[in-house]
């Protein structure tokens, strides 16, 4: 088979249809592991911000996790707050800047372990903010320990024989819980394990920004992301492993859309 030289742009007449990185990313390089799903999710979020023309009208609040290093890479006004507190910080920001899209970027450890009260009560208040949870079922930043969202049987560094319901307790299905709350206007769960799912997730991210801006309350956008390092699997097997473990517990799709009736955002 003939290998094509891909080191330089093509010589023949051609149109560039996609850049290496979204324009709101200052730099391609990052230190996240091979096969990590988080940069993919962040790419989607940044692309949607541009599509929705929120580039100069948004503030990001990052929690603590591997994704936190993206504060240096994302060309948006941003702060990195204390572990778990992002929805509280977002509340203060949104109340003082109601016209600005305020969004949090958190992991499952940040949101469901350390900061469960913050996300629940911010949803209860119906704050018009967007909260992203990058869910990989482990504390990736510290090397792969159990979080509140680790699934039963999942092997982590501190559930080495697998998470046991009787001993370690059961995972928290936060999106399902929030979807029952009147203050949460949009709740959805996407994934970045393949291109189709990525496209579906992109559409959900659009709504996750639009609904709070339209006053429908808090949007929780959970995104399943691969963490092959934290799962102790080869990078190339991360996607498959994820859908066999987390994917079986955390079903994909929209769980709630209070703004569906007023939706002029036809599938584009």
């Amino acid at each position, binding site marked *: 088979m003939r290998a094509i030289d891909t080191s330089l742009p093509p010589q023949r007449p051609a149109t560039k249809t996609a850049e290496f990185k979204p324009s709101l990313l200052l730099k391609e390089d990052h230190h996240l592991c091979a096969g990590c799903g988080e940069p993919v999710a962040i790419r989607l979020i940044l692309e949607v911000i541009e599509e929705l023309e929120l580039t100069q009208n948004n503030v990001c609040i990052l929690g603590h996790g591997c994704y936190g290093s993206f504060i240096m890479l994302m060309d948006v006004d941003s*702060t990195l707050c204390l572990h778990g507190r992002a929805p509280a910080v977002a509340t203060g920001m949104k109340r003082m800047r109601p016209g600005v899209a305020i969004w949090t970027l958190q992991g499952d450890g940040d949101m469901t372990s350390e900061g469960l009260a913050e996300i629940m009560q911010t949803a209860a208040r119906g704050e018009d903010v967007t909260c992203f949870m990058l869910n990989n079922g482990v504390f990736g930043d510290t090397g792969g320990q159990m979080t509140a969202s680790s699934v039963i049987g999942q092997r982590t560094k501190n559930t080495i024989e697998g998470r046991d319901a009787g001993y370690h307790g059961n995972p928290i299905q936060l999106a399902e819980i929030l979807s029952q709350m009147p203050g949460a206007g949009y709740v959805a769960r996407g994934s970045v394990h393949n291109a189709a799912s990525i496209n579906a997730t992109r559409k959900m991210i659009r709504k996750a920004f639009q609904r709070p801006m339209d006053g429908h309350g808090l949007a929780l956008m959970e995104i399943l992301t691969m963490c092959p390092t934290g799962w102790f699997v080869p990078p190339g097997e991360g996607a498959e492993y994820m859908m066999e473990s987390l994917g079986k517990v955390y079903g994909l799709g929209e769980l709630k859309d209070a703004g569906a009736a007023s939706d002029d955002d036809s599938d584009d």
Partner: protein
Amino acid sequence: MTEMRLLDGSEAIVEAALLAGARFFAGYPMAPATELLEHMAAKLPRVDGVCINADSELQAVNMALGAAQVGARAATGSCGQGLALMQEAIAEAALNETPLVIFNIARNQQDYFQATRGGGWGDYRTVTFAPKDLHEAVEHTHLAFHVADKYRVPVIFMADNLIARTQMGTALPVPELETLPPKDWALDGTMGGTGASRWIWTFGGGKANRPGVGPDGYWRQIADKFDRIAKAEARHEQGFCDDAECVVVAFGSGGKFVEHVVRELRAEGHKIGFFRPVTLWPFPSEALEAATENASNILVFELNAGQMIDDVRLAVEGRDRIKPIGGISFDDSGLNIGPLMDARVIRTRILDQLAGKPLTELPYTGMGAYL
């Protein structure tokens, strides 16, 4: 004369905060700070501000942090126990340069260490104002927001239940303060995609196209800033110290009581003076050193087991001159200042010390003594 209103300390502080431009407050009820929250809840909406009844002190302080980071004058508040829960965020505000005012309507005077030493991580300090009464509380409220913005630091305002609940006629004067530069650092959301987006982050990493100085350099800058504040912002009040053989040091309400007693004793011919740190951090060390130069007795009155006395010891030479005349003193509820905050008791204790006698023990005032 501007018309005076009869306000308790809590309401006066809230009115002063609104006049100072505060537009955000988040709090969680805890006596004796609860009334502050109630007044904020009632009054902030009238000036297009927001008061959020947060579900925990952790959330309250982080909400205020967020509001401050987008440029609003923001505050939170509680009593000392509530502030204990807020310590992580107060340290965060110090290290990521967020101006924030934290009102502490303390249950007593046991928050001195917490305020001046802090309970959070890192090389930081918190400017702490300790007003002696309602009038000074009004002034300090303005100063707290001003100093917070001027240096981009958290500022603790530490009053107590006596100040919060005593009502006084006040015209709510607004002190004249220097004009501060606009908050061009605030995260207003407008700089995305410009290549000059803003960041607030305790690690000083900056953005990829404009790298920050990194943690080491950044935390040195922060420490330098606190050095500058220490030199510039120490405040104190003193009286009769020039020829005083005995100087009594006290803060907050205690300072007011001591001043009262010292004036009485002066009138009776005792060579006695008083010294009150108005800011607990920066502690007015140099001023105290000068004020006590000729004193053979330095008496420290504080309602705790001995906290500020450490700063007195650091400030002056000759430790054997320094003696505590305060102590732990609560009322039966455990929420309020106890019987030691009484001019007659303070007077007795000072005279006992001057006569070389041991401290007079307070009578038993255990549960039920007052009911």
